[in-house]
């Protein structure tokens, strides 16, 4: 097998990213949408770490740590909202969540 270069990682990341985007844009289930967002974030993380490896410094890794923090916060708040919403509306479908529509 050929040597693994940065591009390989980038491609994997791109694939994960696109999968995430598809999930976000098409799924009705909010939980899965949120999971897709996690996918997107992971893709970005992968990119960052790969570049960090490429340039031989750690900035990318530090950033990826921040992104993990961000992901945790996002998941917590998002799921919190979801639970609050579910308690009121008995649904977790995205297209039924449109209370703030103008």
């Amino acid at each position, binding site marked *: 097998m050929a040597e693994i270069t940065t591009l390989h990682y980038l491609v994997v990341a791109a694939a994960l990213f696109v999968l995430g985007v598809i999930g976000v844009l098409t799924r009705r289930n909010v939980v899965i949408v949120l999971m897709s967002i996690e996918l997107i974030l992971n893709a970005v993380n992968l990119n960052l770490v790969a570049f960090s490896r490429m340039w031989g410094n750690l900035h990318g890794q530090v950033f990826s740590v921040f992104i993990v923090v961000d992901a945790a916060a996002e998941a917590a708040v998002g799921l919190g909202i979801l639970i609050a919403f579910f308690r009121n509306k008995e649904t977790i479908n*995205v*297209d039924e969540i*449109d209370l*703030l529509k103008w």
Partner: protein
Amino acid sequence: MFLDHIWLIPLFPAFGAAMMFFFGRRMQKAAVSTVCVGVVVVAFVFACVTVVEYTHFAHGTGQPFEKIVYTWLGSGDAHLSFLKRDGTPAQFNADFGFLLDPLSVIWLLFVTGVGMLIHIYSIGYMAHEGGYYRFFGYLNLFMFSMLTLVLANNYVLLFVGWEGVGLCSYLLIGFYFHRKSANDAANKAFIVNRIGDAGFILGAFTLAWYLGSFRFLDINAAARSGHYLIGDTVLTAAALLLFVGACGKSAQIPLYVWLPDAMEGPTPVSALIHAATMVTAGVYMVARSNAIFVLAPTAMKTVAIIGALTAIFAASIGLVQNDIKRVLAYSTVSQLGYMFLALGVGAFAAGVFHVFTHAFFKALLFLGSGSVIHAVSGEQDMRNMGDLRGRIPTTFKTMFIATLAIAGIPPLAGFFSKDEILWQAWRSADGGFPYLWLIGFGTALMTAFYMARLIFLTFYGQPRMSQEVEHHIHESPKSMTGPLVVLAVCSALAGFLGVPHSLGGSNGFEKFLAPVFERGTEAAIAATEEPHHPAGEEHRKLEWLLMVLSVGAAVVGGGWAYRHYALAGKDYPEPIAVKAPPLYTVLYNKWFVDEAYDYAFTGRRKLGDIRLGAMGAGEASSWFDAKIIDGTVNGAGWSTRAVATLSTWWDKWIIDGVGVNGPAILARMISYPTRLLEWGLVQWYALVMVAGLLGFAVYYVWK
């Protein structure tokens, strides 16, 4: 050995007071008496031994003995200093130090001695009163303060005793604290004393500022060094300020008003504090500062005039009072006036001698009156007494001796001291009109009259008390009559300590005190004559003449009183009231001085609608504070709020209304069609976002 531990003398009574403070409530009356009287007896014995030792120490030179216990005020080295008037630094220092010289020896002896007798008397007198331990605790505290006062070696420590006796006087006058009049009297005593104290402390400051020390020995040395002229302005001011203090403590015009009211306290207190010891503190202090006073003739003259005026003024009031203790109180004020008269004319020794004799007979009179009051079940009004001489014989006999003494009948104590003062007053006029002597002479006349009136109204005439009271009359217990007898003996014999030269005596008293009153070089040169030179033959004749005159006055006064009161029945007439009713009213109301003070200084009485004096000023200040100063503060607050309200309105309608909401309304109208794009699916928005991102990226990658 005892001399070195002189500081223990005040500490004995202080120990008693502390015992009462901590344990008094739980102690039996007998224990209280044992402790409190015991410590005073110990103090007296200690004092006697100390004095004996002192005489050995001084060898008749009057050399002062000083014992410094510790540095009280000041940092104990030379670094905390103040600037003297001449710009040189002086150490800020006041020690807990004790000074023993002939002057303090005299005070030490009679304070402890008379104090001891009065303590013993109190055991009987207070036996049935509540607050027994409190009373004795206060008495002990008083003894402590008084001893500190007379033994202090500097003005500041003297001030400690000075304020201390004031405090104890306050506490003891207010002993019956549930009686409003007692409390008022106590407050009055303390506050009036405080005025004097303020003067005193300023005087002390002046001395320190001028001479660089608070210590008597330093000050005396400086004053006698000859650096300062007679009539030195600063020293005159200092002397006058000190005299203000003396006025307060020794009840001179204009600060005498507290003393008559002080009779609200228990009778032993009146005897101890308001006759024998505390009120003589002023005399002591002036005598102690004699080196300053001789350099300030103006101050001396003031002292003499105030003394003379007080003497006759108080005597005039005493003529018509009906309360037995009040008569004695005014008598005390009057006698104190005598003493200041003596001091003012430069006869310090004579003044001190009068203090000494007065201590015995006035204490005796008060204690006797206490015994009388005790006998007639607490009645104090002489109009309700009479014919007691057979029923309480010991009291009668002792009081009679005291009356003779105070009236100046030879050879009792009062005769010698009073005539010495009158003689010195005559001499001070130095050929001019002897108005001081004249006033003194008039006072002597009045003294004899009111004292005789007291005796006759009390012990002679017909019984005027109610049946029930009459039934209860009894002689006082031994613990009360014992001190009376001792004091009577002293009153009779004390005068022989200072028999003047003119009567063939040696005037040992004056000789003993001479080192204290020795004059400095400057003053000695300036003095027109040496007061202690043996009198010439002419003088002697004059002196005899004056003696005869004053004895005559005493006899006349007494006789006059005999005529009017000896047979007084119920509703007897007051001679003055009969002959000059307006004068009687004025005298009876004590020249309306209290009322005038209430109007002018305290403000307790309103003049119409206006309140003057301290309370008036207080009310005015309160009004000023609440309305003007606080009003300004609140006004600032209100105006801020008003401006704020205005700004709020402006903000709400103009800024927000026109400036902000206007464009918003406009935007809302414009935006209506655009809104249709947003149809509520989150993912649609995300899709738009992705599309935008794509467009953006495409533009950048392939631009």
